């Protein structure tokens, strides 16, 4: 083992760690801040909030996104809501309970200190967003409304109709726009980061490609922050936006940043089932639907009958049956696997028998159509648009789909990767969600990182570099990295093979979904680890990219991303194979109870597996960060 992992968790009782740490960290005085340049890659919730806040504080920020505007980041599509322990409903919520639920929801594979800090700052996020004008749902009294979400027994989720992510991102984007106007943030749209530059062991800048002119340039800074989101698109079909990719963090990984828990991916239970071969993505139906919808399948397996013709007696409301306490509101991983079991046992509904029913009939009888319309109107519309079926009359058909990746770059308590000066925030880091993320907690984490955590911890790092200029961007390390990128691009362009990028991405997705999806087996994973490099070799020999390098070239953009997905997919499988237990989203068929529930192994696997890149032809090596639990005791999650 080459690297030693130090999470730098502050001393002291859980409740005081963050407060103490904030006091102990050195600061950068206001007049000195403008001497520091910071690069922020990504303008999603995490990136935009970080860039805006750093700009407000007076640092010189350069922000990058491949979108044509920061507002288009994938965060925009978050629907359900964002958690905070305001306890406005006074239903027994508290910072500690939010912390506890998150740790438990994550199946005890995350760091206590980080998660507690997350729960602590969550309330500030709601205040900040409200002050920015984010139109959260309200009661008639004019105060904020809440809804409940899977995996918890309190109503602590704040929401703006079915567009919470959009409204929060617009809030952050507008804060960012204010700084762009003020000149503290320089914004680079349509600019994709393709490599990290490391000088003397510190992150010193990045290499980017202008997606319009194709020009490849370098930018240097005192610190680099990656806020580039998750990698669910490794499965090709996922609920993520088409352009979501692993490139930024993968390039960092290749430059020495450790990649943590790559196999911890979340499969979301309520998505619209695939309808045909050409489908380009899967659409999520917000988890909040599980508040009023009841999930069932025909008890005696799918026969041609329409849902309406199946009498109550012949329906199996399997979640309510198997988990009386939480019913339809069990956590995502549990709900997803239950649905998979139902479909695998031949009870799947729909033309392809690849879904289960999500039924609102009772809710509509109980609350009236109007109430349902007010709560889920836009989701029902979306469903009808896509499927052509009216969910007010026939139940929705849903099936799990890849949705979120808990894994990501390993970071310490200060959100710094194993490369000094390189930070990862939001979904891009391995985050606070352990082996499974609870609903409405990714928005929370992204904004916590960006608004309240990174700006503090980054200052501590920068304070040590006072007086030093950022390395010049013509430093050999930059030229070398830039040339590396150019060669890579040329190689892709000059392949001139016979298959399209999407074809390869689809094939890769099938392998990963098959063997590293909802259920994983040693045999399957080994098979995948064999198949992936083979397919990658084919890709490198046979991909066809037309058009030029020096203009908008979407095939080229995709190809670069898929190339990195190949390497990542292999690592996901290795990690899944290495983790001989079932926990959260990671389900190893060898490790399950008789009822098919996940069987965790805290004895041997209560650790973070962080992988170190060893070069293209040598498998990555794992480094363990043991997880100590002082405050919560490890229990088997039971939602019965």
């Amino acid at each position, binding site marked *: 083992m080459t690297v030693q992992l130090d999470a730098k968790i502050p001393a002291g009782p859980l409740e005081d760690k963050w407060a103490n740490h904030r006091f102990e960290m050195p600061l950068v005085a206001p007049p000195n801040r403008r001497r520091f340049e910071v690069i922020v890659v990504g303008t999603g919730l995490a990136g935009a909030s970080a860039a805006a806040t750093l700009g407000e504080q007076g640092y010189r920020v350069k922000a990058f996104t491949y979108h044509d505007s920061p507002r288009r980041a994938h965060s925009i599509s978050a629907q359900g809501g964002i958690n905070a322990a305001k306890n406005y409903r006074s239903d027994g919520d508290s910072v500690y309970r939010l912390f506890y639920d998150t740790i438990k929801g994550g199946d005890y594979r995350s760091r206590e200190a980080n998660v507690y800090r997350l729960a602590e700052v969550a309330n500030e996020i709601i205040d900040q967003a409200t002050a920015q004008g984010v139109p959260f749902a309200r009661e008639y009294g004019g105060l904020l409304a809440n809804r409940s979400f899977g995996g918890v027994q309190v109503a602590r989720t704040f929401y703006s109709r079915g567009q919470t992510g959009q409204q929060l991102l617009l809030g952050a984007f507008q804060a960012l726009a204010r700084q762009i106007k003020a000149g503290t943030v320089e914004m680079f749209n*349509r600019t994709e980061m393709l490599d990290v530059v490391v000088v003397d062991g510190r992150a010193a800048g990045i290499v980017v490609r*202008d997606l*319009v*002119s194709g020009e490849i340039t370098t930018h240097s800074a005192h610190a680099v922050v990656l806020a580039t989101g998750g990698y669910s698109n490794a499965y090709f079909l996922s609920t993520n936006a088409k352009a979501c990719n692993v490139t930024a963090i993968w390039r960092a990984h290749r430059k020495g940043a450790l990649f943590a828990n790559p196999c911890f991916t979340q499969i979301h239970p309520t998505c619209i089932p695939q309808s045909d071969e050409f489908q380009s993505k899967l659409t999520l139906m917000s988890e909040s639907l599980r508040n009023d919808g009841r999930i069932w399948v025909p008890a005696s397996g799918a026969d041609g009958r329409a849902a309406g013709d199946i009498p109550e007696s012949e329906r199996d409301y399997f979640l309510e049956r198997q988990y009386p306490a939480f019913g339809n509101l069990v956590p995502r991983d549990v709900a997803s696997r239950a649905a998979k079991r139902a479909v695998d046992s031949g009870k799947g509904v729909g033309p392809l028998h690849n879904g289960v029913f999500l039924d609102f009939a009772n809710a509509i009888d109980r609350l009236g159509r109007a109430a349902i319309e007010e709560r889920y109107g836009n989701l029902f519309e979306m469903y009808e648009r896509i499927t052509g079926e009216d969910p007010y009359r026939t139940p929705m058909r849903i099936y799990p789909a890849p949705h979120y990746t808990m894994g990501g770059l390993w970071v310490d308590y200060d959100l710094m990767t194993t490369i000094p000066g390189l930070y990862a925030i939001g979904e891009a880091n391995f985050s606070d969600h352990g082996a499974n993320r609870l609903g409405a907690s990714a928005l929370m984490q992204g904004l916590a990182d960006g608004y309240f955590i990174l700006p503090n911890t980054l200052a501590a790092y920068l304070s040590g570099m006072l007086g030093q200029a950022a390395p010049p961007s013509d430093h050999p390390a930059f030229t070398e990295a830039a040339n590396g990128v150019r060669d890579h691009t040329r190689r892709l362009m000059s392949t001139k093979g016979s298959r399209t990028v999407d074809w390869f991405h689809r094939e890769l997705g099938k392998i990963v979904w098959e063997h590293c999806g909802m259920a994983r087996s040693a045999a399957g994973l080994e098979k995948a680890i064999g198949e992936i490099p083979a397919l990658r070799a084919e890709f490198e020999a046979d991909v066809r990219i037309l058009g030029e390098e020096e203009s908008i070239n979407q095939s080229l953009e995709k190809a670069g991303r898929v190339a990195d997905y190949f390497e990542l997919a292999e690592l996901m499988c290795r990690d899944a194979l290495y983790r001989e237990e079932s926990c959260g989203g990671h389900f190893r068929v060898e490790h399950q109870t008789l009822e098919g529930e996940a069987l965790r192994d805290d004895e041997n696997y209560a650790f973070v597996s962080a992988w170190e890149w060893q070069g293209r032809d040598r498998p990555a090596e794992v480094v363990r960060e043991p997880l100590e639990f002082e405050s919560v005791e490890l229990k088997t999650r039971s939602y019965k």
Partner: protein
Amino acid sequence: MHPRLPIGFATVDSVRENAMAVSTTTAKPPRTPPLPIRFYRSAIGKKWVMAVTGIVLIAYLIAHLVGNLKVYLGEDELNSYAEALRDLGGHLVPRTSLLWLMRGGLLLAFVLHVHAAYSLTYTNWKARGGAYRDRDYAVANYASRTMRWTGTIVLLFIFFHLADLTWGAQPAAVDGFARGEVYDNFILSMQRPVSAVIYAVANIALGFHLYHGAWSMFQSLGLNHPSFNRWRRYIALALTGFIVLGNLSFPIAVQLGLLEL
């Protein structure tokens, strides 16, 4: 990156301010012109002016129509009405002074309305980046799409109309034009088929113009209330109906011989 364009049609306050904020030169900023000018410089300001002048013009049209309807009461009624116009204000003010005042206001409204119309039209044509191969309008109706043309027709008509009935200038006016003999001029003029057609066409154009205009002005003035919005269309329709039908009745009546010397 690729070129960025502020097209910069409007020389607009805060845009200029920003420009100065960033420009390092310490040159004195140009003196900001008085509020009305600044307001009128902005497109929204122009629209506001158009709406207000539009209202003035509509008011005039109504009054004008009501006055003209007197022809149905006979020659003397109309002439004495025309006379009364000139006598407005009785002996308190010099004769025809109030009338001239009204004419002045009317003229001003016209000039502003037309100037705004043309400068906005110019801006909008510059803002349009080429036409679509095929364009399928969803709601924009014939009236709203032809404002510029119907407006122009009305403008041309007014010159004709003034020459015809106010100045008595050839060739618009009839040979027998006699100042003050409003009724005779009126009938004689409209007995000419050509002139009757001109009047008819112009007023139909005016109708389209008003149908959109009288609705549009509420938007421009920001007169907007959920319980009132749906009435805006009806109001526009009623106004247009009254003015256009009223005006059309004259040439028709004359041509049918219902009105004669």
